[in-house]
């Protein structure tokens, strides 16, 4: 492509050559940066990307949020529907979080059923919301044994530039905070549930928390908030979830092992980040 101008390299040619090098040898490309204690997007290792949260802009949802973390963009909308509770849990509602990674958000996804990545992320998000007890499911009860609320927390990634987990969890939590439910009454005679449009109340959230993800390269370089380019090159991916009181909720690690020292370091960084993110909500 650039063979004609090898004799006289211009700035545009240099960028193009850098791009080709990045495509062909991504790992070496990244290592050249990390050797200088920098990352390809100009961040230092422990620098976060800018985060913005915008809530309540979708009128068809009962609660919604749009989160941008660097270029990663996730929209989340909560839809409340009425369902019959499980027989053995007559007073418990349902919380159903899902993440969709559609073909629009990145060239690596194709149209069709959820990719493996989307399935794993949905599962982890579900676990994060359930184990942390963000919402008591019995607060979703309309009439024991007859009618409960089901909250579908659906997220869609519009632009995938890495760390979709943190962005999505943040979007889901922001959307849940933004959610209001209409006052519902169950009529025992007709077996129907009717709602009032005027009388809406917010959800009672039990706990506030945030997740923070890191990528570890060659056991020593800990990159916080990795981008789509960095993510697949990491040796270890680590996610730490802490609540607003600094209490650890869970950690999730995949790939090769990391030292305890690194883990502790990441946890304390995560606490810092969590309180930053809480302020955004």
């Amino acid at each position, binding site marked *: 492509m650039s063979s004609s101008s090898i004799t006289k390299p211009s700035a545009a040619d240099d960028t193009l050559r850098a791009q080709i090098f990045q495509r062909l040898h991504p790992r070496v490309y990244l290592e050249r940066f990390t050797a200088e204690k920098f990352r390809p997007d100009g961040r230092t290792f422990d620098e976060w990307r800018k985060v913005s949260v915008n809530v309540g802009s979708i009128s068809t949802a009962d609660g919604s949020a749009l989160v941008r973390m660097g270029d990663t963009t996730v929209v989340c909308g909560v839809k409340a529907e009425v*369902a019959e509770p*499980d027989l053995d849990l007559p007073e418990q509602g349902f919380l159903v979080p899902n993440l969709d990674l559609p073909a*629009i*958000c990145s060239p690596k996804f194709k149209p069709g059923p959820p990719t493996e990545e*989307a399935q794993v992320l949905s599962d982890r998000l579900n676990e994060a919301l359930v184990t942390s007890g963000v919402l008591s499911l019995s607060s979703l009860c309309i009439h024991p044994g007859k009618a409960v609320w089901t909250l*579908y927390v659906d997220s*869609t990634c519009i632009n995938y530039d890495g760390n979709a987990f943190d962005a999505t969890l943040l979007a889901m939590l922001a959307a849940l905070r933004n959610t209001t439910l209409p006052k519902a009454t169950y009529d025992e005679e007709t077996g129907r549930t009717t709602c009032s449009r005027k009388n809406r109340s917010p959800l009672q959230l039990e706990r506030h928390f945030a997740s923070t993800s890191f990528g570890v390269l060659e056991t020593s370089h800990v990159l916080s908030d990795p981008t789509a380019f960095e993510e697949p090159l990491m040796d270890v991916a680590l996610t730490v979830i802490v609540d607003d009181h600094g209490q650890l909720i869970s950690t999730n690690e995949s790939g090769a092992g990391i030292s305890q020292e690194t883990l502790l370091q990441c946890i304390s960084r995560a606490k810092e980040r969590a309180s930053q993110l809480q302020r955004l909500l």
Partner: protein
Amino acid sequence: MAQSAGDRRRINGPEESFSPVFDDDEEDIKLKTQRSRAAGDIRPIFLQPGLISQANGSAYIETDKTKIACAVYGPRQTKTTTYSEKGRLNVEVKFTPFSCMRRRAPIRDAEDRSLAVSIHQAIVSSIRLELFPKSTIDVFITIIENDGIEGCIASASVAASTALADAGIEMLGLVSACSAAIVGDDIHLDPSEAEARASSGTVILACMPALDNVTSVWQSGHMTADMALKCMERCHERCIDIHSIVAQSLLEHRTAA
């Protein structure tokens, strides 16, 4: 609505759930059909090219409540082995589950396809597909919020054309599109969902104003031929305005970059 039970690829809720029923649904509908702008006015358009960094070209369009993101990937190699002299344009539309009054289960349904077909029709003749043999241009559209299918088709066509231009794909002209509904004896341009439901017929017109031609006409419901022509003429006038909005936003995006 009910979800396909036992889909192991997603987190599943209860087997069945229903949209809440409100005590004052009828009043609410009446309230929504009231139009706050003049019959010939369209909803204000916010159009921003280039928001999706991963794509070759992209655009985000917002017309009042309707919110649509569109990304263009390609031209890239067509996966099938058969040789094609012309490039292929592939349009896929996806609704987010929370985009409509009723939750849409995240499975492809008939509406996605018919929307994709009409958007394809609106933009296909603007692209110089003969320049891209053996290639596919993918246009992916996500409807984040829907306030009227007619408006969605029109806005998505505009966004798609903007995204194609943003991707640097050669075209004969920019496509703009506008919809109209007949409510009583009046023509309401760019109808909302409630307005379209209350109307006796709708028209969606897509055209390339720079070349003064029409790429798609999509009429449903019933109306006389004269009324249909009147709708098309009104839409065409608005398309010229929309065209300048598209051109302006692309220009601003270029100079900012």
